[in-house]
């Protein structure tokens, strides 16, 4: 009897813990784009091309423009803080809900170093991933290695929001939120969500240069490399073509660390070759295809108008790839050294 009472108390304690934790999550975690993007993915089933990647792609790739150029409905699933294991589980969701014929992986080499396990912060993609058996595996792969706070308290990164919790709750109870309206997301002043994963950044006076992680092959996280292989394998299993690209950073940034970037791009080319997939590095894109300079970037991300031009170029390129008409020398230089600063 005593034993049963003890077990009952432990169970009730756990239930109370879950309730309080859920209330705090509801109160503190604001509406975010990841939720809207995931909804856009699962509520449609006719995407033919899906782009996976990181925030560079979120700002740089306008899925509407790419769709117009390629004639195939495109969804941009590039999300800030999306590591390769997140992309892997997003891709699972893609194949569960859609039948794409092309997957574009926008690879930022820095994400081969940022081992999510070492981070304290959790991940909005993991936290918002729908409950399923896949989520259980996602938990095993991602959250298990994290510090317990990151895994158990999804609201921890938003703990400064206590004073704003009234507004957050109000927003979450609104019809707009329930209907996944992106207007419920508090965006940075010059950012606007355009739909299908693309964030449009209005020009302002900032042209901040960001410090990139230095490339060092020995430091590449092999878990991430394995996830890349799993992504390729999953595409192959679904008879879906996968190509790897890299959204360009500014020419000035490339010129500032040519050797570093050379090493990184050589590694990425090898990674693609090892997985038998093509790699197109838009850092080497010719001026005649997409012209850019430092003024087109803000904290390493393309401004909206520049992103529009880049998306047009990317769309045309993807169409050529689709039609088997691509001549890489028409699009790309051979080396960073061929790029000219304007």
């Amino acid at each position, binding site marked *: 009897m*005593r*034993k049963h*009472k*003890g*077990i009952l*108390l*432990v169970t009730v*304690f756990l239930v*109370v*813990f879950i309730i*309080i934790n859920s209330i*705090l999550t509801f109160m503190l975690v604001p509406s975010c784009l990841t939720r809207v993007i995931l909804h856009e993915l699962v509520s449609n089933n006719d995407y033919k091309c899906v782009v996976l990647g990181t925030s560079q792609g979120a700002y740089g790739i306008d899925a509407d423009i790419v769709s117009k150029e390629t004639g195939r409905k495109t969804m941009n699933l590039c999300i800030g803080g999306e590591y390769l294991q997140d992309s892997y589980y997003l891709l699972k969701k893609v194949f569960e809900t859609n039948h794409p014929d092309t997957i574009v992986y926008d690879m930022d080499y820095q994400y081969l170093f940022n081992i999510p396990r*070492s*981070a*304290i*912060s959790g991940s909005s993609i993991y936290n918002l991933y729908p409950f399923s058996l896949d989520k259980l595996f996602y938990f095993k792969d991602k*959250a*298990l*290695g*994290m*510090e*317990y*706070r*990151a*895994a*158990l*308290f999804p*609201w*921890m*990164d938003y*703990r400064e929001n206590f004073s704003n919790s009234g507004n957050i709750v109000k927003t979450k109870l609104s019809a707009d939120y329930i209907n996944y309206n992106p207007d419920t997301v508090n965006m940075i002043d010059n950012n606007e969500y355009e739909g299908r994963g693309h964030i449009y950044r209005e020009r302002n006076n900032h042209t901040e240069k960001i410090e990139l992680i230095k490339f060092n092959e020995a430091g590449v996280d092999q878990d991430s490399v394995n996830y890349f292989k799993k992504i390729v394998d999953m595409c192959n299993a679904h008879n879906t073509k996968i190509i790897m690209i890299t959204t360009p950073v500014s020419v000035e940034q490339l010129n500032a660390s040519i050797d570093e970037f050379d090493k990184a791009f050589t590694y990425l080319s090898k990674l693609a070759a090892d997985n038998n997939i093509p790699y197109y590095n838009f850092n080497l894109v010719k001026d005649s295809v997409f012209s850019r300079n430092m003024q087109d970037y803000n904290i390493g991300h393309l401004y909206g108008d520049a992103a529009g031009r880049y998306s047009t170029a990317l769309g045309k390129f993807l169409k050529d790839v689709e039609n088997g008409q691509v001549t890489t020398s028409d699009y790309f230089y051979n080396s960073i050294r061929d790029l000219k600063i304007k």
Partner: protein
Amino acid sequence: MSLMSTQLLLLVFATAVVYYIIPKKYQWILLLAVSYMFYASYGLQYVGFIVFTTITTFLGGIFIEKTSQAGKDKISANKDTITTEEKKSMKAQTKRNKKLICALILVCNFGVLAFLKYFNFAVENINAILSGVGTTQRLGMMSLLLPIGISFYTFQSMGYIIDVFQGKYASEKNPLKFALFVSFFPQILQGPIGRFDKLACQFFEEHKFELKNIQFGLQLILWGFFKKIVLADRAAVVVNKVFNDYTNYSGFYVIFAILLYSVQLYADFSGGMDVVIGISQIFGIKLDQNFARPFFSRSISEFWRRWHITLGTWMKDYIFYPLTLSKPMNKLGKFSKKKLGNTIGRVIPICLADLLIFFLVGIWHGAAWKYIAYGMYNGIIIAGSNLLDPAYKLGLKKLHINSERKPWKVFQIIRTGILINIGWYFDMGVNFNAAISMMKNTFVGLSLSTLTDNSLLKLGLLKKDIQILAVGCFIWFIISVLQERKISIRETLATKPLVIRWTIYFALIFAIPIFGYIGASSGFIYAQF
């Protein structure tokens, strides 16, 4: 799998569920399996080392006992025919054989530890000497593995073999049971260093589900996380900044960093211990306490009786006493009494043993001169205090100071705190020279304006962080005072109504993610030993 990882918490939860469901006689087997799984999660290459220690120590224990028994049997079989002299000689032979086995096991295991931990340090110093004498020849360094927790499990196992040699208890006959004693997963990373006679019976007895064990265990785990995440990780920001860039800081910056290092180290190590002891308690296993509010100590020797207690008692039982009671030390004692008088002569061997112990404590912390300096600093103070004790007592008498009065006790606590903090320069300094340089810099630019013009807020912490640190330390201080007065907070709490208890538990559970420091993830300091 760090002590703060989700993996570990789930492992503990799942193991506890299975532990209380399976037949009680298999509980220890489950703990053994989980312990090896836990250890292997750090890398399979490490498992070989712990298996080596387990097998050699287990067999050593068996052989020592068999040798002892064989000696006794031989004497009893021939008791009617042998003379007293022969009997003595047989006993001495048995003792020599036992000693040989014990020494072999000690040399093998401490040899592995010393080789892995100190080989490169020795090479570095030999090369420095070679360079000093002008030769161009150099010894090569080796890339060596340092298995997780090797210092802890080696000390624990060697304690066992010495105890068996001394006949304190019988050797364990089941190799798997012995393997659990060496590898018990909560304590393998950073202790406490356990004793076989206290732990074995707990490991192998049947444990019923007791809500109190779960409650008390979870309380300790939470309290440990609070100390580590809210206090230690926050204090570490300033400590790392100042110590890593020591040439750019002086005066109150250094003093602030040193004081915060006290907070960091104590919160980190004792927090880790709380987590370890709490996890063990969930399985009904009570580990030894490793801390007893060391900053209330009135002397350095008392500090070391309250700080890292299990290492201190290990050193005392297996090195200090055998050394001070050894024949050469007895001779030295007699000699010094004759030459220096009874009072001084009596403490000379003790002082020498203290110096040796603290040399070992220093080198145990790491292969660097700064650690040796740290150990010797403590050893010299303790040895000096022993030597000067008569003069000290005389001084108090002449000044009419009652050493049992509160103000004097407070003075002693503050004085001890200052001495301990001076020792941290060596412990945390980048190297020995950096420690000396920081000591000098402490007295440079001691401007009071540093304390009032928000300069200390430029060391990586915000005002809010300092406030959280201050409040957290205050809560910890209050709890320590209550514990010092023998008030058991947990027992008191257990008598309160469920609503009050649960409110406190949930407040603590959620206070950690609310007030915990978020930054680069850092593990427990002592998990690196």
